[in-house]
C-alpha cells in the first residue's frame, strides 16, 4: 500500500483526536495540533495502519455506521440480560466454555469480533487460537461447534467482514 496514503490516514486520525481533546477551534491550537499530528504520523504510520486511505471508502464508512447502532443495541440488551440474571433469586445460569470458528482472517478483524463478543449477551472471549475462539457462555444453548458459530459471532461477522476486510 502507498506510504503516502498510510501517512495521511494516520495524521488525519491523530488530528481529529486532537480536535476532540482540546475541543476548540482557535487557530493556534489547531496549528500546533496539525504540526504534531504530522510529526507523530511520520514515526508511527508504519505500525498504525495497513490500508491507509482505503479505510475511508464510502462502502466501509457506511457499513461502520450500520454496525455501530446494532452494536450499541446488543450491548444494552446484554446489560439487561446480566441484570436479570443477577437480580433473579435463583440465578438462572448454565455456564460453560464453547468452541467457535471465526471467519475473520486479519488480526484486526479477530480483535474486533472478540471484543464485540465480550460485550454482547452472556458471552466472554477467553482465548483466540488461530481461527478458533473459546468463549465462556453464561447460558449454554448448544455445545456443537457449527451451531454455536451461528449463534454467537454470526451477525457480527457479516457486518464486520464488509468494513474490515
Amino acid at each position: 500500500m502507498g506510504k503516502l496514503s498510510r501517512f495521511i490516514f494516520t495524521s488525519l486520525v491523530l488530528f481529529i483526536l486532537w480536535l476532540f481533546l482540546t475541543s476548540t477551534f482557535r487557530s493556534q491550537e489547531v496549528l500546533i495540533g496539525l504540526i504534531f499530528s504530522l510529526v507523530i504520523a511520520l514515526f508511527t504510520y508504519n505500525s498504525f495502519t495497513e490500508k491507509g486511505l482505503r479505510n475511508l471508502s464510502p462502502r466501509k464508512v457506511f457499513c461502520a455506521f450500520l454496525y455501530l447502532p446494532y452494536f450499541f443495541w446488543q450491548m444494552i440488551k446484554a446489560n439487561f440480560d446480566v441484570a436479570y440474571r443477577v437480580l433473579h433469586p435463583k440465578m438462572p445460569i448454565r455456564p460453560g466454555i464453547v468452541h467457535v470458528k471465526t471467519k475473520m482472517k486479519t488480526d484486526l478483524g479477530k480483535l474486533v469480533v472478540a471484543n464485540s463478543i465480550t460485550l454482547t449477551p452472556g458471552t466472554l472471549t477467553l482465548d483466540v487460537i488461530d481461527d478458533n475462539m473459546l468463549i465462556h457462555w453464561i447460558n449454554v444453548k448448544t455445545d456443537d461447534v457449527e451451531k454455536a458459530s451461528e449463534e454467537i459471532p454470526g451477525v457480527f461477522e457479516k457486518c464486520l467482514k464488509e468494513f474490515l476486510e
Partner: protein
Amino acid sequence: MLTAIGWFLIYFGAFFLFLGALGIMRFPDVYNRLQAGTKCTTLGALSTSIGVGFLHPAWLPKTFIIALFILLTNPISSHALGRASYRSGVKLWEKSVVDKCKEFKECVEEENE
C-alpha cells in the same frame, strides 16, 4: 433538557455499576463474575461519563474520547484476566455444562509444566 438527559444517563450508569458489583458478589466462579464485571461496568462507565458531558457541554467531546477508550480497552482486560485464570488452573463452577478448552493443547500446557 440537556441537564435532564445528563442526570438520567448518570443515574442509569450508576444503577448498572451497582448491578455489576452485585453480580460480582453473587455469581459462583471467576468467569461468571468477569461477565458481570465487564458488561455492567462498560455500560455504566460509558453512560456516566457521557452524562457528565451533557451536564457540561464544553466537556462533551472529551467524554466521547474517554468512552471510546473504555469501549476499546475494557473487553481486552477482561479477556486477559479470563485467559490468565484459565491457564493458571482456576476451575470452572461444578455445575458448568461444557468445557471445550480442554481439547486445546495451548490452553492447558501451563498446567502440565
